[in-house]
């Protein structure tokens, strides 16, 4: 066999020069062209931010790939969910039941948060968020996961603009906050998970009502933990405190959705603030059915779960 370099290998190769190798030079000009094309793509995408010229291209590719991903996920689902296959005969009914339970549970929590918030009106100006209590849930399933090699945590769900979804909507499941919608195509939507290093959620510690920001730490870190940085550095969150979304009227995250549980607290001298490790309630490695919070009365291509638990 040939060896890397070495006069003998080289000698043999040159003597045995066949047509293929003569016609298979790796052209540097093409390399330069493609590298420049990649660099152009990056520049275009970075310059534009949310209005980047790549966004329409992403959308077109999403329109093409989304349905195929949905079909692929449907094809592989029986194989990947073999353990739950036998007990999911009437899985649809179960799902609706679960989502209904989740919805009423969330509604209770949201209302409680609103009540607390009203009492604390003088301390914060977030009461406007409490007006947004009435929300409906669009059920959807996760059909594709972004690889961790991309150093981001995103998934595709099989509901899109036809189901009434739009960017910045809150995505939840039985256990709590999953993330928010980044962009939608007609039949799919891309969801930024809490775990993503770029994900920042306004969080509120349940017991003290202190506010802070929950940062994602990457999906491959042990347990997929989150990082809570409190605004007020004099307050130390207790272990096992629950953290809920703080939310705002115009912001992407609906207020009062449970995020996770404080597992560890430490003081960051460098940034002179309290930081806590938050373990999310949601098991991100086993995401399947999720609900997207949409305003009441949103037209949709599927049954929507209303705030009172009824199905429309």
């Amino acid at each position, binding site marked *: *066999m040939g060896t890397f370099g070495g006069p003998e290998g080289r000698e043999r190769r040159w003597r045995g020069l066949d047509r293929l190798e003569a016609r298979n030079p790796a052209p540097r000009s093409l390399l330069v062209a493609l590298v420049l094309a990649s660099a152009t793509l990056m520049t275009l995408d970075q310059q534009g931010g949310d209005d980047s010229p790549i966004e329409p291209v992403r959308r077109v590719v999403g329109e093409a790939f989304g349905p195929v991903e949905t079909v692929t996920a449907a094809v592989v689902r029986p194989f990947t969910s073999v353990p739950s296959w036998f007990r999911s005969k009437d899985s649809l009914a179960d799902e609706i039941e679960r989502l209904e339970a989740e919805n009423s549970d969330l509604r209770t929590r949201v209302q409680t948060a609103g009540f607390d918030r009203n009492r604390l009106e003088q301390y914060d100006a977030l009461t406007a968020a409490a007006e947004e209590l009435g929300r409906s849930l669009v059920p959807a399933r996760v059909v594709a996961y972004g690889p961790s090699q991309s*150093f981001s945590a995103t998934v595709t769900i099989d509901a899109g603009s036809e189901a009434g979804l739009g960017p910045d909507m809150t995505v939840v499941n039985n256990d709590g906050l999953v993330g928010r919608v980044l962009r939608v195509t007609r039949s799919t939507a891309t969801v930024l998970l809490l775990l993503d290093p770029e994900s920042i959620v306004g969080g509120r510690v349940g017991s003290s009502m202190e506010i802070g920001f929950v*940062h994602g730490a990457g999906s491959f870190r042990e347990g997929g933990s989150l990082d809570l940085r409190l605004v007020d550095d004099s307050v130390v969150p207790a272990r096992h405190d629950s953290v809920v979304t703080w939310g705002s009227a115009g912001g992407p995250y609906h207020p009062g959705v449970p995020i996770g549980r404080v597992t560890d607290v430490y003081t960051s001298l460098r940034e002179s603030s309290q930081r806590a490790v938050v373990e999310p309630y949601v098991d991100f490695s086993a995401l399947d059915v999720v609900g997207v919070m949409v305003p009441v009365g949103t037209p949709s291509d599927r049954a929507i779960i209303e705030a009172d638990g009824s199905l429309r």
Partner: protein
Amino acid sequence: MTRGRVPVAFVAVVVALLLQVSLFPHVAWHGIVPNLCLLVVVAGALTLPAPSAMVLGFVAGVALDLAPPADHLAGRWALALTLVAFLAARVRQDVRPTAIAVVATVAAASFVGTSVFALTGLLLDDPAMSVPELLAVIGVAVVWDVLLTPFVLPPLMKLFGRLDPRLAT
């Protein structure tokens, strides 16, 4: 000939991408999946003419950058996989693709590809990652890709090679 093989290669990229985002996450380790698109690109670089292989790498990268769950800066995987295709095509001129050479090529390609992607991330956005974490992810990715090589590369290389009468040896 080339006309027949290149579409097949692009179909292979699409299939690889779909499996990578829809099937393999269910067996992933901390979300790190085998990079099937990279394997297709390496297989292409070892069998197709170098220009086609490089275009294949670029297209596979753009697909990874833009297909739905992706949210990073577009062009990062395109750059990484173009370089992978270029390097694999260069290596191929010096080494006859025996089994060990193929595995070594895949390991090197996986390391280079994921590293280039990570480095562009460090330079352009995603400052949240620390270098040890990046290295851990790259290491796991290389292991995954090498593990899948015996199952993916031979059929693909046979497929790409068989469609080209000149390469049928």
